[in-house]
């Protein structure tokens, strides 16, 4: 630990970067799932309407 006195700053920097990147990936994936589900519901509803 004495040889690496500033290791805490390095760990914090990498953890922060990983967190932000993970957040960006998760938010885009979550958005995609919500949009795909919305489109699927809309198409299913239109299909039901056409059958009637």
């Amino acid at each position: 630990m004495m040889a690496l006195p500033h290791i805490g700053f390095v760990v914090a920097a990498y953890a922060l970067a990983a967190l932000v990147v993970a957040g960006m990936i998760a938010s885009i994936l979550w958005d995609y799932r919500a949009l795909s589900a919305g489109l699927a519901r809309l198409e299913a509803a239109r299909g039901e309407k056409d059958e009637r």
Partner: protein
Amino acid sequence: MWNFASPSVFISLTRRALPWLWLATAVLFAVGLWMSFAAPLDYQQGVTVKIMYIHVPAAWLSTFVYGVMTLASLGTLVWRHPLADAAQKSAAPLGAGFTFICLVTGSLWGKPMWGTYWVWDARLTSVLVLFILYLGLIALWRSIEDPGRAARAAAILTLVGCVNLPIIKFSVDWWNTLHQPASVFRLGGPTIAPELLWPLLVMALAFTLLFLALHLMAIRNEILRRRLARLTMIAAAEGDSLAPRLATGGSRA
């Protein structure tokens, strides 16, 4: 060329390209991180030099993303292409993310090296202005309901804001800053030792591919959001009672 800019063709191309892009990104990150931690410590900075391998690529990406948005803004204003709107809108949160990483990792490097987390130095301040610009653009997109009007307003603000890019780049030459001058892209070649430079370049490439993958996914989301909005309006016009409930699909306006 214009065929590739058609939303349906874009979605189909994205579906095929994304798995390969993610694979290349993961491999480059694995190699880049391994090289970064295997690289020798700097004789002055010690272990804090490791922060450089994420700070510098994030800094490059913060201006690169804004450059992409500037080109997309020209596409919006000159050709009025909907894919240019989508590219510009979806890049802003990513640019904000990379700029945030750049600012915070820079602060975490500055404390042990400079003795302070922050100074109002020209480079740091101009990057902070860039971060605020990204937030302003995100807010602008969210505050105007009509996507066409929002795109034009955001495009104009983006073009105005691009004057900040040369300020960021040359701030270390024009003013007496605490931030060190360019050490990679400079006349006369890099001043960094190859043992430290190669991991940095691999990490920069990994970050760039990460941005490309995320940007393609975000543009695809934007196309789907517009398709959903259009179909919902058609359903509403046809008197579909399900339309209001369906319109809630998607998370970002």
